[in-house]
């Protein structure tokens, strides 16, 4: 019998604090929540490896701030660097500005200057700024020393990679947001047999979700083996 086609609709899992499993990162998560709510540090610099969940947390901050009627701008610099630094103009009037992947603009004079200006204006107006990068401020190759030192002025927090048990919980949370039932033994199987970084695992889970829907099957270890045997 031919396999039923799953409709290719885009499902957007929510990126809120409730969908984030903090594990060892309870402290940064709490500070981020407070700042998003307008009750914490004015400047947070959050760093950690790719896939640690920085983007998720920034988006969660936007949600949290919006619930409190605060005005927000979120800028994924990894994407915006292809355009011009005008993207940073006028943002000082927002209550909260979230800049994702600030390391991407390091060494670009126009972006660095624009961020320096924005930084000063946000500070003048007592606005909140959350910045993420893969390294702490002192390790970024930012050429403008005035900007580099300013980035380290606030609260610098590290987002640590999760231990396997926490990754399992994080995966279960993600599966739940997809509406997929992930039995613990299946989660452990995924962790033991496939790349253990969370973004890769989440992506795999997304594919498996699609495949179980199409096959009208539950997610089991034999199903995973068969599916990955088919796709590889």
């Amino acid at each position: 019998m031919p396999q039923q086609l799953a409709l290719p609709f885009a499902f957007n899992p929510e990126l809120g604090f409730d969908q984030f499993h903090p594990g060892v990162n309870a402290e940064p998560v709490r500070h981020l929540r407070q700042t998003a709510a307008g009750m914490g540090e004015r400047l947070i610099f959050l760093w950690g490896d790719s896939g640690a969940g920085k983007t998720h947390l920034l988006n969660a901050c936007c949600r949290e701030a919006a619930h409190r009627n605060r005005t927000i701008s979120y800028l994924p610099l990894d994407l915006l660097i292809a355009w011009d630094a005008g993207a940073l103009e006028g943002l000082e009037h927002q209550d909260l500005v979230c800049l994702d992947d600030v390391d991407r603009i390091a060494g670009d004079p126009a972006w660095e200057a624009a961020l320096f200006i924005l930084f000063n204006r946000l500070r003048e107006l007592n606005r909140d700024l959350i910045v993420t990068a893969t390294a702490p401020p002192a390790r970024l190759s930012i050429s403008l020393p005035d900007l580099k030192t300013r980035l380290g002025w606030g609260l610098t927090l590290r987002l640590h990679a999760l231990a396997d048990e926490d990754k399992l919980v994080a995966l279960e949370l993600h599966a739940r947001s997809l509406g997929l039932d992930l039995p613990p033994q299946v989660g452990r199987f995924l962790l033991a047999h496939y790349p253990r970084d969370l973004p890769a695992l989440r992506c795999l889970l997304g594919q498996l979700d699609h495949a179980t829907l199409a096959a009208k099957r539950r997610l089991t270890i034999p199903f995973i083996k068969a599916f990955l045997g088919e796709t590889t």
Partner: protein
Amino acid sequence: MSLLWSQCISKLEGELPPQQFNTWIRPLQAVESESELKLLAPNRFVLDWVKQHFIGKIEEVLSAQKTDSSPSVVLEIGTKKPESAEESSPSPARKAQSAKKNQPNNLNVAFSFETFVEGKSNQLAKAASMQVAQNVGRAYNPLFIYGGVGLGKTHLMHAIGNEILKSIPSANIVYLHSERFVSDMVKALQHNAINTFKEYYRTVDALLIDDIQFFAGKERSQEEFFHTFNTLLENKHQVVLTCDRYPKEIKGLEERLKSRFGWGLPVAVEPPDLETRVAILMSKAVHSGVDLPDEVAFFIGKRIRSNIRELEGALRRVIANSHFTGKPITLEFAKEALRDLIALQDRLINVENIQKTVAEYYKIRGADLLSSKRTRSITRPRQIAMALAKELTNHSLPEIGAMFGGRDHTTVLHACRKVQELRESDNKLAEDYSNLLRTLSA
């Protein structure tokens, strides 16, 4: 928020990927009237993007929300502010940070002479600043404060302004960053209001402009500033400027400006010594209502040497961690809280790195520092490298000697004393040493 818009964004939030939604839809602010829904974008970039990619979608969602005729959507650049969602019960962190309410002149009241921690590295600059504040336009004009980033230049500048206001409350004082001067001027030109701009800046009692190195390469702004500067000085109104370097060293600045900046008193702010760093930490801790033990302040002060912002960042980290865990701040606690930061500093500063940096600075070979050569061009950099190794690492003198080609610890001791002596008598050497210190601990 407009009800219609709030319904519209909850619909869009469900339909768009979170990142797209947060980047393009969240920043929009809505002003609703009978016939139109005006969406304000923070800048041209967002406006164009929304126009190109989302306006159709927004209109579609809006018409689905409204049963009768849906309002027309107008996109503009702007903001609804100034009102802001104010928190009901600000946290201690927030209270401490918000204490610095700004006045219309942009002066930050938290930056006063009383809160400025004085040390050997900045006492001259502080004394000159106090003189200027007490004798507006008559002491040093312009006062030119220069030095590396994060060393307290801006604090002094605000302190001057605040002090003047104490004795002359009606004084018209303007503090601004040089970049703001440039952008205001550009706006004035665009709106045909350059005369108002000129009038405004040329009639103030004291003009305080921060980071004037950002004037470099902006000829039209320099021209305008030159005239403003001259008018103010002629009328004996005070000008205070800060810069990251000595006037003559600013590239891209007109010679006539450089020479005028040197007319008054150029005064340097150096990186703070250990005792000053500790005093700064103590003062910041008191300001945050935190009890900071001496040994913790010394620990942080010894580890973070480059600038005050980094020092504040480290203290903030310790305080935040203590609030989070509910544990008191002890030496062990601080070491743990700053583990990442310290590991980073330790990786950056080691004897090999110091030797490499010094050799590059003096354009000699790294091997020369370890050799037995005794020419002046080699011995001086070698002595400086040894002194830096003593100041910046925790190695013992015999260890440092061993790492400099197997020298005796008395040679290291002699080098450190010699460098200390020369730093007080030889300006060039003192500057070299500061530059190296800054490079290594930045």
